[in-house]
């Protein structure tokens, strides 16, 4: 039985505007993030994705409903530190969160504040830098890193806190193509090591890396399921303003032309599917 890590129950959240009006960002959202799962959250701009992310570790608190992290209610102030150490969050612009003058100190900053003692602190920093491919940048100033390295440094700083779950709010949006691929590989690797990943993204191909997809639309859950299930709902996705991963668009285009193939989600699967009959006939 998978164990729930984060339980979201009938969550509603509204922002107050300066004029005193309320803007309803989330309405009656329910979902469960199981331990060890890789979940992608999709949705058009303004659908409530970032608001939902901030509710996952108590940066925002529900107006109605509940969010529980390993059974701890995010509205319980006494548990907030524990909750934030379980669920760590990276944002789109990592520059805003760097505080130290070297990469190494930046990664050490969080655990040091938790009072982690020296041999373990060093071990954590070394392992976080190794995991994110930044070991060779340990002594450099974070501001001198490339955008891709900064995004990975933000992840390294979170890893050093040893959270159970990593929430990434469009951490790949600003990256160049190669850095984006490296970030995707990093997340897949961390997931294989057992970490729970929640990735908010506008890139459909990144959502195909995940095991589960949640689609938000106007603050409500529009679709929820495996990537196969969610991306099969082509008409509904189009209605919401989303599409499918490129490999799926291409495979369904070929299927429409009469090629006997099933839609696939990833480039790897597409290549395998297209070459399968070929190689069978050669072999």
């Amino acid at each position: 039985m998978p164990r729930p890590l984060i339980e979201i129950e009938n969550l509603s959240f509204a922002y107050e505007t300066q004029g005193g009006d309320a803007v309803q960002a989330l309405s009656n959202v329910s979902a469960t993030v199981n331990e060890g799962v890789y979940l992608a959250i999709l949705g058009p701009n303004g659908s409530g994705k970032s608001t939902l992310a901030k509710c996952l570790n108590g940066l925002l608190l529900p107006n109605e409903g509940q969010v529980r992290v390993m059974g701890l209610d995010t509205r319980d102030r006494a548990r907030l530190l524990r909750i934030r150490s379980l669920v760590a969050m990276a944002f789109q612009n990592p520059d805003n969160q760097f505080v130290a003058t070297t990469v190494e100190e930046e990664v050490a900053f969080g655990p040091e504040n938790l009072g982690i003692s020296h041999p373990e602190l060093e071990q954590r920093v070394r392992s976080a830098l190794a995991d994110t491919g930044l070991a060779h940048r340990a002594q450099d100033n974070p501001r001198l890193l490339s955008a891709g390295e900064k995004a990975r440094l933000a992840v390294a700083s979170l890893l050093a806190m040893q959270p159970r779950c990593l929430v990434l709010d469009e951490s790949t949006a600003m990256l160049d193509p190669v850095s984006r691929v490296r970030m995707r590989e990093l997340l897949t690797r961390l997931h294989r090591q057992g970490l729970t990943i929640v990735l908010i993204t506008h890139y459909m191909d990144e959502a195909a890396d995940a095991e589960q997809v949640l689609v938000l639309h106007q603050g409500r859950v529009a679709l929820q399921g495996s990537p196969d299930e969610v991306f099969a709902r082509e008409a509904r996705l189009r209605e919401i303003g989303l599409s499918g991963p490129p490999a799926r668009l291409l495979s369904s285009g070929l299927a429409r032309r009469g090629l006997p193939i099933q839609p696939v989600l990833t480039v790897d699967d597409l290549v395998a599917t297209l070459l399968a009959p070929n190689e069978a006939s050669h072999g």
Partner: protein
Amino acid sequence: MAEPLIAITALRHAYLPGTPMRTDALKEVDFRLHEGEIVALVGPSGAGKSTLAHHMNALLRPEMTGHVRVLGQDTASRTCDVRLLRRQVGLVFQHPHQQMLEQLVGDDIAHGPAQLGLEGTALRERVREAMDAVGLPFAQYVDRQTFALSGGEMRRVALAGVLALRPRVLVMDEATTGLDPAGKAQVMDVVRRLHAELGLGIVIISNDMDEVAGIADRVTVLFEGRTVAAGPTHEILGPDLALSDYGLLRPTAGQIVDRLADRGLDLDRSAVTLAEAEEAVWQAIRP
């Protein structure tokens, strides 16, 4: 041949020269935008794309070596009419809220032309024209609060604010980054229409190779402050240039045909869009 709208030759630019913080953003950059063209400027982060964009409307001017000629003016010259140039070359940035000056959509779009002395009905018509161009219905949007707009709407308001100055060239610096697929498609549709109907010259700076493949006539590649490649889209994003040497990748469509070719499928590898890849694959393996 007519003079290009933008001709940048052997441009060098350093931030904070003469200090220990000196950063050489541009080392040797060549760039051309011809009349009626959509040119994409691509390169990994830190390649100098935004610095180059700032040279295109004289927000930065050559201080070291190199020449920048924009719409017939030399931006390093003391006689360069910078106000005219900034009106003629509109820059749209990635973060539209940094570009929003007023609380209401209509006032925000009117800001630029009002500075030029337009007022009353003429100003109102200019705002209406710009909103039409980006597909924001005037009556519905003119009195909306700018902070309550969606990401896609905000980009279009920012674009309308630039268009209200009736520019001849539009420079879009990561102007669709962070937008959802529908929002990106909307902005790109607007760009195509502006290009087709008003004949604007357009520079698109983007990290999204799929987006670039779908819209650009030519592509210029910047890497570590240098122009390392420039040419027609199919040439630059095609199979022959090692884009990965420059921190870039072919568009997804190109990656797919390359992978199939590497595994022995005999097919046309020139595809840069999904439609082209579909055709190439279909031709190679149709039953």
